[in-house]
């Protein structure tokens, strides 16, 4: 069975509505990356340097990034040689396999939860990427699964941040623990942990203020929050999710490195994948970082959060192929 039909078959077992979300959310990426590769491969009669160079441009143009692009093109050259491929039209399949190879599953669950007792999840990232919104969406999801969830308003800095989280809390029907704007975020988180213990919550989702990773004092503040969580609950935090905006370019790698060093990031939430033509960053992340993409954001509504599913992703990317 071919690569594409296998993909189709396994995706067919998933929920139709979820598949639809992936397909429509990634349609831009698909035409921009896969469609553009396709026109290179079908529009040429031989495999030459110009072809490789155009392919490089398409990949870089989709935010795959220079290092990952170089890697993919080098792998393609190897495969062409090894399999003695002469026809450019055969390259689309090879490229899809190579991309699939990079996305290799590590079978990580979308959330590492503590089975008996409370789980604490910390959300971190630069400004405006979608931390607070993701918490709102996840609260909604966990609540639907019947879990007792509490939110901690750990962004005490940005104007309206607490009210924003409260709105999400009301929507999801979960409590929000807060202090006044301007108070110490570590103190808010401490309070929230005590409240979550007292109310026997199963999951505590902690919001933090957006901060650029090169701001040393703000990163120190985040480490302090992290230490409070570690101290108050054994094995916590159970997840530290770095929220990345899919529209971001290669600075995403820097964000992952610096936040990773500061607070031990365990996974990535990739937001705003809807509509952007740049799902290519997923490929770069998988190649350059040792971090699983756990969730993806495909819109601004409560149910626009999906566990990252490699096969769904590939299927949505290569939907036109068969």
């Amino acid at each position: 069975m071919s690569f594409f039909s296998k993909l189709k078959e396994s995706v067919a077992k998933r929920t139709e509505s979820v598949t639809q979300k992936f397909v429509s959310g990634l349609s831009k990426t698909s035409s921009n990356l896969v469609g553009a590769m396709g026109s290179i491969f079908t529009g040429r009669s031989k495999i030459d340097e110009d072809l490789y160079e155009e392919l490089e441009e398409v990949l870089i143009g989709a935010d795959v990034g220079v290092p990952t692009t170089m890697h993919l093109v080098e792998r393609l050259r190897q495969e062409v040689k090894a399999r003695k491929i002469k026809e450019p039209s055969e390259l689309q399949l090879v490229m899809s396999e190579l991309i699939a190879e990079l996305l290799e599953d590590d079978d990580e669950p979308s959330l590492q939860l503590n089975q008996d007792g409370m789980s604490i999840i910390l959300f971190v990232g630069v400004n405006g990427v979608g931390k607070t919104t993701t918490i709102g969406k996840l609260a909604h999801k966990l609540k639907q699964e019947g879990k007792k969830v509490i939110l901690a308003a750990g962004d005490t800095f940005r104007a309206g941040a607490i009210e924003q989280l409260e709105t999400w809390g009301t929507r999801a029907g979960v409590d929000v623990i807060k202090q006044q704007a301007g108070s110490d975020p570590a103190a808010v988180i401490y309070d929230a942990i005590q409240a979550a213990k007292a109310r026997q919550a199963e999951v505590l989702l902690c919001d933090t203020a957006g901060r650029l990773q090169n701001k040393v004092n703000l990163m120190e503040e985040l480490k302090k929050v992290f230490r409070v969580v570690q101290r108050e609950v054994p094995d916590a935090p159970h997840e530290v999710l770095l929220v990345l905006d899919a529209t971001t370019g290669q600075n995403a790698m820097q964000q992952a490195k610096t936040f990773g060093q500061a607070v031990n990031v365990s996974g990535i939430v990739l937001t705003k994948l809807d509509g952007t033509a740049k799902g290519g960053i997923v490929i770069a992340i998988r190649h350059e970082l040792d971090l699983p993409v756990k969730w993806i954001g495909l819109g601004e509504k409560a149910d626009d959060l999906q566990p990252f599913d490699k096969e769904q992703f590939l299927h949505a990317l290569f939907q036109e192929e068969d």
Partner: protein
Amino acid sequence: MAFEGLSGRLQSIMSKLRGKGKVTEADVKEAMREIRLALLEADVNFKVVKTFIDRVKERAIGQEVLKSLTPGQQVVKVVNEELTELMGGQESKLAVASKPPTIIMMVGLQGAGKTTSSAKLARLLSKQNKKPLLVAADIYRPAAIKQLEVLGEQLGVLVFSLGDKENPVKIAQAGIEKAKKEQFDTVLIDTAGRLHVDEQMMDELRGVRKVAEPDEILLVIDAMTGQDAVNVAESFHREMELTGVILTKLDGDTRGGAALSVKAVTNCPIKFVGMGEKADALEPFHPDRMASRILGMGDVLSLIEKA
């Protein structure tokens, strides 16, 4: 600081050239290959990179450059000029309506920094003894109005809102009416973040533009944006006829490719850059100074002004 990574790369390429007594066509081509890679790694859009490299190559390989007494210097000069041009040439100031109020509309993707930048502009105008009015036309994002109200209060600038039940067109209209009646001289309309491909939401923006007849429509864009920056800018420009750009979060360590791409595709000047989260962290953008800073040619003018 933003641009640092790009700057380091370009400077080492440039210094190699500068040090050469004799520069051959091959030297220039080699340098251009390296510059191409440096720009791509900085997220400059690949089409923009292509045009840029072609232009520099054409000028630099010209006889007068390579035959000159200081060919290396001359090539560096060409790169500097083209880079300045790429970023917009001259500083571009905010428009002022001949008959007040001046109307400024902020547009852009989600989380780019529209609300924060609106507040920053309001502060700047207040400092110039103007009387700005902030209009809260984001009815979607949870607590968006509250965010603007808190910022307005901090700055002592009035925020006009009709809550989140009225539509943004009506809010803009009512805000402008109020400004006219009460002698506000500038109206800053904060709109909701939206994807450039969201037709319904872009339609709404056009509606606001129609009633507001803005003097400035500023695209607020995150300096960390990747290759999609040009599509975003192109779409917003096509739909809205932008008059300028505010580039935010330049206080990060991004290589800033978006900055170099957006002007190129829209031909709209970058008017301001956001350098932090606080209300005073907004600076006018000087393309020439930024270009020389990136190439390490000394940012003499800015230094003189700071002193």
